[in-house]
């Protein structure tokens, strides 16, 4: 019972931290935030590993196998796609540099060509 009391305390405190931290995230990043938070609940994979320790019946073999697939997809996919999104958020620093180069070349068509190159890289 004692450990349950501690666990509930942890749960409540973590909720408060969550509200506090999330409230500070700008709207710009809400999509990556949702996706990032989504991957954090993939922590359930740790739960799968823990229950696998005691598994010895066919039923639990099936449950563990399915839960491992679903949990791993959640956590790995979530982090990869969030990283992919955040990679695209670029500061104008790199953009400004590009503009300067363009002005040096003195050709108005260059920015568009550059943008198209960027597209081909994707």
């Amino acid at each position, binding site marked *: 019972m004692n450990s349950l009391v501690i666990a509930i305390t*942890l*749960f409540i405190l*973590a909720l408060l931290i*969550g*509200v506090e*931290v*999330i409230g500070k995230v700008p*709207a*710009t990043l809400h*999509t*990556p935030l*949702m*996706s*990032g*938070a*989504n*991957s*954090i*609940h*993939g*922590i*359930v*994979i*740790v*739960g*799968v*590993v*823990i229950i*696998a*320790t*005691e*598994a*010895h019946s066919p039923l639990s073999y099936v449950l*563990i*196998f*399915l*839960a*491992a697939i*679903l*949990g*791993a*997809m*959640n956590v*790995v*996919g*979530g982090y990869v*796609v969030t*990283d*992919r*999104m955040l990679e*695209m*958020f*670029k*500061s*104008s620093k790199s*953009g400004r540099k590009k503009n300067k180069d363009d002005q040096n070349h003195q050709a*108005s068509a260059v920015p*568009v060509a550059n*943008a198209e190159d*960027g597209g081909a890289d994707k």
Partner: protein
Amino acid sequence: MNTLDIITWFVYLLSSVMFVMGLHCMNSPKTARTGNRISAAGMIIAVAMAFIHLFATGFASSLAIVLLVLGILIGSAAGVYSARKVKMTDMPQLVSVFNTVGGGAAALVALNDILTSEGTPTLVVLITAGLGVVIGSVTFTGSLIAAGKLQGVSLIKNLKLPAKAVWNVLFALLTVLCLVMLCLNPDNRTPWALLTAIFALGYGLVFVIPIGGADMPVVISVLNACTGTAVAMNGLAIDNVALIVAGALVGAAGATLSVLMAQAMNRPLLSVLAGGFGGSSVSASQDQGAQGTMKETTPDDVAVQLVYADKVIFVPGFGLAQAQAQRELADLGELLKGHGVEVSYAIHPVAGRMPGHMNVLLAEANVPYEELIDLDDINPQFPSANVALVVGANDVTNPAARRPGTAVSGMPILDVDKAQHVVVLKRGRGKGYAGIENELYFNPNTQMLFNDAKVSLQAIIASVKELIA
């Protein structure tokens, strides 16, 4: 607690701290990517520790471990594949799919706790794991339907549920009833646990099916919070600090985002979840649409206005993404900036299909994030803008929101009408999601350019290039 348990506890605590730090770093685009990696590192540490503990303490069956590792490998491969392949416009669906599998995993773990425990599980385990089963199952089917609706799978989109209130109450009651029976009859737990799961799965279906496709982002966010809570319940059942803290963090994140989103859409969260926007409220407001004539313009004329402007504000909406014209808009922005025009992008909180989605779409088109400006910061700038170029946004620009009595009343809007000239690129004369005419279109300083956004923007770019050269 032996030494290994204490080490394990602190490692889980460390990874929980890393999750908080990771989320904290999300408060700026500069540090967000690092934050996500800190969070991922925390996850790797937690999983590694779980495996170390597993091998150090021994396990009941090698087959279980083989299946565990095999499952993780298959799941990881599927996750990486879908994460790499997805188009940025389809991001909300993918988040929903990952939420589906997360909820499913949480439900399965909880089910395992109840069904395969040695001896009779304690009441605490029955309650927490039971809640894990319920919430995880609701999330599983609910997110699946949400993803299907967003993807536009016609089978799911056309699903209708007559008497939705009856079904919702019925399934909710049956789920709660079975959960109570499960807790009261631990010796007969298998049938009750399975019934609980089945009715909770059914509740997920009847909960999401009546909700309109445009409200899916809010639903996804709510279900995301649910998965987090289900994971935390699992944490309570198996007494694991990492699951409790991470689950609570996600629960808080999902709840906070849901409320923010509902506010931005100007609707109480509960009314979104009850479903049924687009019914009576819209037909009632039908008669008070704006009157007058719209002024049409040509791409050449728009190009002249843009090139000779000092300051231009782009106002992108989901119509831009539907036309796949983000890159064209970014190119036009680059051209104008090269010509010395000040360009910025006004981003409404619900532009796109989920909050912040438009930012991701424009980031993909290489628009620097400093140029993407939130509602509160951009609104004071409209009066000093020579041209506001609205591309595929409708309700979020409707001045009718400023006075009471319309379907959009009270909704936070972009003050586009305060710009000196307004150009609206729009596919047709149709109404927005709220179902009313946009008064902006009838303003004397507004010009309309009717066509696919991509075609219009390409035409504008072509004539801007001629003018600059």
